[in-house]
């Protein structure tokens, strides 16, 4: 996922793009074939092409674009498609936790690995992500995904209860405890994991808790303020996307005392309705999409400052 190349090679994990809502990932094998409603594609016809190429299907009745994998595209191609709008929360978390190449980060739970991949991209190669997950099957799935996406070097997945006694301590890994720059919690009872977070954090490091319900936020914020955190701040971010099209927009040729209508341009298609002339103009119009995400969760940020 992190090594972008110009030419598509055998063994590459690529994204087949046939539309915003039609993407899939594919690992290219010499003898492989990809089938979709946009046609069939022999892998060997893809291998050797440039990334970003438009590839026509084997029988020329369709086409797709082949692009490189990113954490964002990967989370779209995951089965749980509910994660894709989560992108903005991920961005906000990484920006506000001040994560960069070299950061040491703790995350719990791992979940689909969507945030983990974004964090790994950002901390690599000097930093590391320690991610903790309670569900064993998710741990396995995540380890597999991270390996396939070439992120396993930067991520340690631990199968553990974030609220348990051991918490986030990995005393077996040198320099882990007390060196964590950022902690992210996505747990049903985040307040129960705050002490465990504190146990691996250093002065000045950041914590973020994501919760869908306001009651969780209330309990978490009280716990944080009692645990030597400052700069406690809860925000909510929602993306609004726009439907933008060059479309025919109908104008009526009604007389008025203020301006002269000028429909002499021959590009306009005219019609008549109820005795009035009308003209269709190509107008570049935009509007927000009607179906939108009304809520993902609240993000509570705080800085651990035990000696301030």
């Amino acid at each position, binding site marked *: 996922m992190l090594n972008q190349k110009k030419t598509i090679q055998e063994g590459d994990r690529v994204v087949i793009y046939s539309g915003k809502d039609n993407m899939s990932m594919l690992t290219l094998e010499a003898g492989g074939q990809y089938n979709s409603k946009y046609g069939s594609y022999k892998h060997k016809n893809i291998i050797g092409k*440039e990334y970003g*190429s438009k590839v026509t299907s084997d029988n020329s009745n369709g086409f797709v674009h082949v692009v490189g994998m990113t954490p964002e595209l990967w989370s779209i191609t995951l089965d749980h498609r509910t994660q894709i709008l989560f992108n903005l929360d991920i*961005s906000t978390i990484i920006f506000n936790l001040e994560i960069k190449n070299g950061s040491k980060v703790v995350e719990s739970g791992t979940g689909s690995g969507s945030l983990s991949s974004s964090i790994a991209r950002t901390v690599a190669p000097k930093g590391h992500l320690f991610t903790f997950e309670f569900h064993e099957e998710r741990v396995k799935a995540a380890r597999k995904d991270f390996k396939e996406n070439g992120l396993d070097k930067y991520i340690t997945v631990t199968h553990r209860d974030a609220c348990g006694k051991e918490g986030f301590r990995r005393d077996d890994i040198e320099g882990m405890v007390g060196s964590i720059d950022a902690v992210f919690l996505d747990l049903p009872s985040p307040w129960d994991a705050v002490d465990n977070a504190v146990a691996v954090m250093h002065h000045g490091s950041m914590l973020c808790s994501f919760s869908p319900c306001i009651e969780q936020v209330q309990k978490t914020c009280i716990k944080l303020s009692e645990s030597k955190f400052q700069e406690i701040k809860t925000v909510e971010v929602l*993306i*609004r996307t726009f439907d933008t099209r060059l479309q025919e927009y109908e104008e009526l040729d009604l007389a008025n005392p203020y301006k002269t209508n000028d429909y002499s341009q021959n590009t306009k298609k005219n019609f008549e309705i109820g005795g009035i002339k009308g003209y269709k103009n190509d107008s570049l119009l935009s509007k927000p999409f009607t179906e939108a995400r009304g809520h993902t969760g609240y993000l509570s940020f705080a800085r651990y400052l035990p000696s301030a």
Partner: protein
Amino acid sequence: MELDSSNNSTITPTPTTTVSTTKSQVFNFNSINEGENVILDINNGEKFSIVKVKRGLKTRIGKKQINISEIIGKPWFSSFQVVNETNTLKIVTQKELDDALNNLVELNQNDADNRNLDQNNTAQKLTQEEITKMKESGTDSNTIIKTIVENSSSFQTKTAYSQIKYLKKKIKKYSTIVKVIKPTSKSLTEAYYKKDARKICNLRFDSFGQLLTLANIRSGTQVLVVETCMGLVTGSIAERMGGEGTILSGFIGKGASLSIVNNFGFQSDVLNTIYPFNINLINKLNKKEDISEIINPTVGLDSKNKNKRQDNNKEDQDDQENGEEAITNQKNDTSTNNISKLLNDGTWSLVIVTKYSPLNILLACWPYLNASGNFVIFSQFPQPLIECHQFLHSNQMAINQQISEIWMREYQVLPKRTHPTMGMDGASGYLLSGIKVNNITKPTIASTTTTTTTNTTTTTPPSSDPLDIEKQVINSTTTTTAEEDETSESVLKKRKLDEEEKN
């Protein structure tokens, strides 16, 4: 978010092992050293000042020049109180500040509703003159506030909550607290956005975070950025990349205007990833004109070379304070020739945040973005992005395009008083993002087309164009590709339903 501070004295059940670990680190890695850049956050965001720490340095805080020596050796993010008598700083802990607040006066214990509240402002018996006199005579701020409260006839009728709000307001007015913040992409964005958002093109933190994600910024990659944000964007990308990768930072004007890069306090390995160049280089490369006349500043990030067209805001002085030292990319070849070579090698991310109309900048930079690479443009206005979107869409130059805006709200989380904050920043700005593609499998005769909102004419790319891949871009305003035309509405609907079941 604010938290009721009256209960802050509760002891944290932190395991002892941690405390010791933390303690030892505080003084090893986490203290403020001479020579480091710091952001002074004055009165919780009221004002920001960015300085390079030097023993004996005086800087303007409020209306006075304050000696900041006291902060050296103290932990980052410590708070300091201005000592009026000596014009110096004194470290204070959050607990001390809270205690001071609580000890000032006894708060009301009954949490009544506001039925009996006088709607008018607190009736104050002291005149403004008397208060000013106290202040000028160097009276301790706590004493001033206590006197004010004692002379307020309505203070006792307020609820405890209102009383704390009132006290906090007075404390802010009569005492000055300085918090020393580490300069990072986040803290600098916050500071400049509050100071004068126009200087950073109104780039809000959430849009900026989203931009860095959508641009797929990571270490080891090559990025082309064109910005008029005084280096905030370039610096933030450099911060993320942490010394590995290449940032080609195009500037508009006589010299690179990247003074904010100085404020990050980068080590040289990080600085060496930045290659500033005049955007005219791209103009000339595209025209196939002689580029030798463009002399690239070797002292690229020197703030003295600041673009003269920049607004002359009086607050500029603060930024200049530590702009004396020029930052340079000294290890690498920043010559025009080498930058041309790097551009022609291609980049994987294109980021544009300027005050100019973006379409021409986007198209000029387009040849230097690799296919499959990500582009993101920020603008305060939707219209210019709609225009870019339409151009790329109709010419089938990009996939996965999205125009977005962010709706961000902060919350007040308090027992029985939880609600979104009443004030809100309503303008996140807009982002256009997407992935560049080549459509070389379908060469079609290009036609001339005009978009509706501008007077731009799309023409057949000249066949002598050296950029072969770009040659066959198809112009077809009217054909919309099947792939882009599917409304994502239905899919969102499905997703929404899936989601609802889980909650």
